[in-house]
């Protein structure tokens, strides 16, 4: 597949051809189910005529069914564009196809989508990761130039790692959330999933920047990174040693090889540890669930989406939400409702906020001595469908990614090799807040070294 950088050099007719060829490819690779249209046997959703970019189903595109992969939003047509979509359009890019996802971005395998499974292009018996599994699978399968995903606890980086592509989560506040159906407002960020690091930087530049419609948007001018990429820049990189040691043997070895390669290329490597990641999980699931429990209250069947037949108001709420939400979403709404309840608020929500501050301070401490942090993305490579039936086991998929969201830092996941079953292995760089330039420089450096 043509890269985003290459596509940006195409003329109008070439773009028309690119779009038409892409449609054919999407049709041919229907079994991947990366796009909701592939799963539903429908023509690909389009808006505008620019370079086609796959859009996760929780990012609003005017006139599209945007459903967050949920039954409760069936029939809903978004009446406006998310800010990232408008930004894309003004740069010659165009939303093209709805990428499949875990329902409301809650999951690590894309198995919880209302529309069905997305397959991992490297091995179709394996999951593509999640929640932005459709976006990553589309890029990996060569049926998307690039894609947008969203990352609340690893939902861009983990599927990128499982599918062998590049996925980047910006600093919290760098990309407007206006038009992204909220899961956890204080953690959500939209980001690019691409074929290489440079494309990620290009797409990031297009979608980033301050915006008044999002009060949490950072009020600082965006400094372009893609035109200043420098793979020769020598950086101090802190490796999270305890994370590397915890991963399975093949990931551990590949990661260590990558660290060696970075060192050989002239980067300074230092070794650090982070607190046991089980605290990250607990903190994340309290905060994310609490925010989600309120964010999802709007899905009540009153104004839009699916409304269940009922004879009274209470029944309408009960049936609409019972039938409309999937199991994982219900689980997290219940969890979030519980931790916010009087008598439990201090013990859970307030405590989680304190833990969040602690996690953030740990990152800050390490980043005082380093430009970047280097860590694994996942404890294993892509797993088989249905192999993680225990939700807690599924939650462990996020152990190396969620703390980054809790700290609000930027991170990028990129492929560093394959395991013995030929499944991709990813690793992530984590940067200073608003330190995207160093983040992309480091990632580009590693990408180049590994290509040699």
């Amino acid at each position: 597949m043509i890269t985003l950088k290459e596509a940006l050099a195409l003329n109008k007719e070439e773009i028309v051809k690119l779009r038409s060829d892409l449609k054919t490819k999407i049709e041919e690779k229907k079994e991947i189910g990366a796009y909701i249209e592939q799963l539903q046997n429908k023509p690909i959703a389009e808006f505008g005529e620019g370079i086609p970019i796959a859009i996760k189903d929780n990012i609003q595109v005017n006139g599209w069914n945007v459903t967050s992969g949920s039954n409760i939003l069936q029939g809903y047509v978004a009446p406006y564009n998310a800010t990232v979509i408008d930004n894309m359009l003004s740069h010659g890019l165009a939303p093209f196809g709805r990428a499949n996802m875990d329902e409301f971005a809650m999951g690590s395998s894309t198995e919880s989508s209302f529309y069905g499974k997305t397959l991992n292009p490297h091995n179709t018996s394996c999951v593509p990761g999640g929640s932005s599994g459709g976006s990553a699978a589309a890029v990996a399968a060569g049926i998307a130039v690039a894609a947008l995903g969203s990352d609340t606890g690893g939902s861009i980086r983990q599927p990128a790692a499982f599918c062998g592509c590049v996925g980047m989560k910006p600093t919290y506040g760098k990309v407007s959330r206006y038009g992204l159906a909220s899961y956890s407002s204080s953690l959500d960020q939209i980001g690019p999933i691409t074929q290489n690091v440079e494309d990620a930087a290009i797409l990031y530049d297009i979608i980033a920047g301050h915006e008044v419609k999002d009060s949490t948007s950072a009020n600082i001018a965006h400094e372009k990174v893609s035109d200043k990429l420098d793979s020769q820049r020598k950086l101090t990189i802190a490796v999270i040693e305890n994370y590397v040691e915890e991963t399975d043997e093949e990931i551990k070895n590949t990661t260590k090889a990558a660290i060696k390669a970075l060192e050989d290329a002239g980067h300074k490597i230092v070794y650090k540890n982070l607190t046991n990641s089980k605290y990250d999980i607990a903190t994340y699931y309290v905060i994310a669930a609490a925010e989600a429990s309120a964010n999802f209250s709007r899905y009540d069947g009153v104004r839009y989406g699916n409304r269940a037949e009922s004879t009274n108001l209470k029944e309408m709420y009960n049936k609409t939400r019972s039938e409309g939400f999937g199991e994982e979403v219900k689980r997290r709404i219940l969890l979030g409702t519980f931790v916010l309840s009087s008598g439990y608020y201090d013990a859970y929500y307030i405590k989680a906020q304190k833990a969040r501050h602690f996690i953030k301070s740990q990152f800050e401490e390490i980043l005082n001595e380093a430009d970047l942090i280097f860590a694994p993305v996942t404890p294993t490579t892509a797993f088989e469908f249905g192999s993680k039936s225990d939700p807690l086991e599924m939650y462990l998929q996020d152990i190396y990614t969620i703390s980054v969201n809790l700290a609000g830092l930027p991170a990028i996941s990129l492929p560093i090799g394959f395991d013995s079953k030929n499944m991709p292995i990813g690793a992530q760089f984590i940067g200073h807040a608003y330190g995207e330039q160093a983040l992309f420089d480091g990632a580009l450096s590693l990408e180049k070294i590994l290509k040699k």
Partner: protein
Amino acid sequence: MFEVVIGLEVHAQLNTKTKIFCSCPTSFGDAPNTNVCTVCLGLPGALPVLNIETVKKSIAFGTAIGATVHKKSIFNRKNYFYPDLPKGYQISQFEIPIVEGGEVIIDFEDGTQKTIGVTRAHLEEDAGKNNHHGSVSHVDLNRAGTPLLEIVSEPDMRSADEAIRYLKKLHSIVRYLDISDANMQEGSFRCDVNISIRPKGEDKLYTRAEIKNLNSFKFIQKAIEYEVQRQCEAWEDGRYDEEVVQETRLFDVDKGVTKSMRGKEDSAEYRYFPDPDLLPVVIPDEMMEECIKIPELPDEKKNRFVNEYGIKEYDATVITGLVEMAHFFENMIKEGADAKMSVTWLTVELLGRFSGGMSAVTSPVNAQKLGTLVKRIKDGTISGKAAKEVLDFLMENDVSVDATIEKLGLKQVSDDGAILEMIDAIIAANTDKVEQYKSGKDKLFGFFVGQTMKASKGTANPGKVNELLKQRLG
């Protein structure tokens, strides 16, 4: 004997042009669901952005009641499901409201005063409206997201009368600050009343009932009186614990009773938490400095009127009760009208002629005209009696004061020659009465005055007539 304990929660709709978290207009009475957008409809992906005007108006209010205005306050989500609440939570303030503390002073006719404490005032968004038509209900979200300042009092009031005085004072303050239209009928000034009773002498607060749906001072008064009676009777009958429970009650306007509305909130569990879509509200120093400069408040104005114009305290209270009236009065003074005369002509003559919901704002005779009229009395152009005729005419016709005086031929005759001519004619026609007067029948002086006024059709300056008659009759 019981003591009544009343605390009030007032929702004043702030009169901003746009809603609190989006740019939809706040206008009242438009077709349903026309003033709505992605944000106030609660669409997926929509985010709130604070309208800073609401903060400015809150600062003004806090300043007016001598409260602490928090430099940093926080918006929280108050979670509950209702069809008129698009997001399934209301954005409100909980642990750190923008305004905390403060007091409102209420006045009584005998000149005494009482201070009512204000616990807090916080910003929040209004909900929409559910309209029920038989078996279907329609939701109108035009009102959803209009800014409210919820003003919570301490339980400091001891009677319906005190509660009404507090409300009227609060109403007057927000009108003086021009932060709310405070129109009770349109719902831009709403009140919930918390009532409990206790044996006199006790400090403990007993179970309170909250009464909602009160949209006029009259209903508030009636609702309180009914509720107090209900609680007292329950106590006396030994059924207090069963009948007086912490609950929300609705006032039935037709029957004049309060009714339990259990069902909406079995037990309130709002799961407040800071809204992650909004940053804490931090007031910049410049904004604080700008917004604490507030206009003159009712009490200050009243005192100034008394001191500056020498009008009676009671009159000053009446005039400053409504900001529109106070402005009307001040504009009359600006026109050059005498202050004391203006009081009478405004509060007695003009107000007495109002009909069908007229107010100082909608009055057909504006302050400039009424001021001119008063001026014409003072300078002797017309008599007070004639001025009433002029005012009657002006109530019906949009013309100038002077043109009316001219048209109705009411200009006072103060010219000695003209009056003397009339006096001489009257003396000539009543020689017998002149004789009687001169021989000591003083009472007949009135007869001559009357005759002269009659001859002038009331336009002769009575002072002049008196003076000249005395000259002629010796």
